[in-house]
């Protein structure tokens, strides 16, 4: 007879619940599979066939995991940590570390500038090429923890969201501090510089990250929809 709790643990490895709740879910589902297996054995099925039939009760572990998390079981704060903050910060830390490493190694950015306008647009091409993978990684961990699609995409684009927040705060603060420091601020110059920095550090990296996020989101969506009817009215097979 298989180790049912271990089989369930493997199937629901990404269940974002606290340890006790996770153990309870594993044990409960393992009990169901074990009871089903024994019922099949009592019907005269050979052991191998009985195991196979019991395992068929869960056709899609990812879908089951998603449904369990969507049922509201578990601490919402803990779920948010697993679905957004951990994958988001992971993507953020990896992308920042990679960029810093490229800069330390002396990779030169592709510089685009226009005569007469302040600021330049910098593109670290190897970094930009790595971002879809990092976005996919964040999205994968988020989706694996049962996050909804919007949260998966937020987790994958977390680095640019953090940077965008810094930009949004920086602009008004700069507009206040510079006059106090006695510097004349030309709104047009600051706005142009921010737009260019926005393209370098937000728009293009954001697009790269979201490509990876969308890909993972699409792959996870290929499972049966979780909002299917909760009950089927098919007759059971003998």
């Amino acid at each position: 007879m298989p180790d049912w709790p271990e089989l369930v643990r493997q199937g629901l490895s990404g269940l974002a619940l606290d340890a006790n709740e996770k153990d309870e879910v594993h044990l409960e589902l393992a009990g169901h599979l074990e009871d089903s297996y024994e019922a099949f054995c009592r019907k005269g099925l050979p052991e191998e066939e009985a195991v196979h039939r019991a395992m068929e009760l869960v056709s899609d572990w990812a879908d089951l995991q998603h449904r369990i998390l969507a049922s509201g079981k578990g601490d919402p704060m803990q779920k948010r940590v697993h679905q957004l903050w951990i994958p988001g910060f992971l993507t953020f830390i990896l992308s920042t570390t990679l960029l810093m490493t490229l800069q330390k190694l002396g990779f030169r950015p592709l510089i685009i500038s226009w005569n007469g306008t302040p600021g330049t647009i910098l593109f670290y091409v190897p970094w930009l090429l790595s971002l879809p993978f990092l976005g996919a990684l964040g999205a994968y961990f988020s989706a694996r923890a049962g996050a909804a699609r919007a949260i998966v995409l937020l987790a994958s684009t977390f680095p640019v969201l953090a940077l965008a927040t810094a930009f949004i705060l920086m602009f008004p603060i700069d507009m206040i501090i510079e006059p106090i420091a006695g510097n004349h601020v030309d709104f047009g110059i600051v706005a142009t510089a921010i737009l260019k920095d926005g393209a370098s550090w937000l728009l293009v990296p954001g697009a790269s990250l979201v490509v990876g996020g969308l890909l993972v989101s699409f792959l996870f969506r290929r499972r049966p929809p979780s909002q299917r009817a909760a009950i089927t009215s098919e007759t059971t097979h003998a």
Partner: protein
Amino acid sequence: MIGSGIKRGTAELAVLSVLQEGPLHGYELARRIEQQTNGALHFTLAALYPMLYRMEQQRWIRGSWETSANGRKRRCYRLTLAGKKKLSPLQREWAELFRALQRLTKVSHA
């Protein structure tokens, strides 16, 4: 008026009705529903447990670990007071739907 959540309500009605007879664990609950409906209602594992957890969150049912005669631990669900209160309107909704369908199809039930 038949509620929009009648489909989910049907599954919930089945669970609440069976639990009204006494506490049961998930496997036995699914088996009992299937048996009592002659196999017409069949819960998949992926449908049953998330629904039980949702109903538990709503405090209609309460789960607790119990040890059976053969020493196995199983999580048994029992109806709460809130669950009993929920059952009556669900039964009314279901009956109303059934009557409406009968009027529509003009089929008299046995």
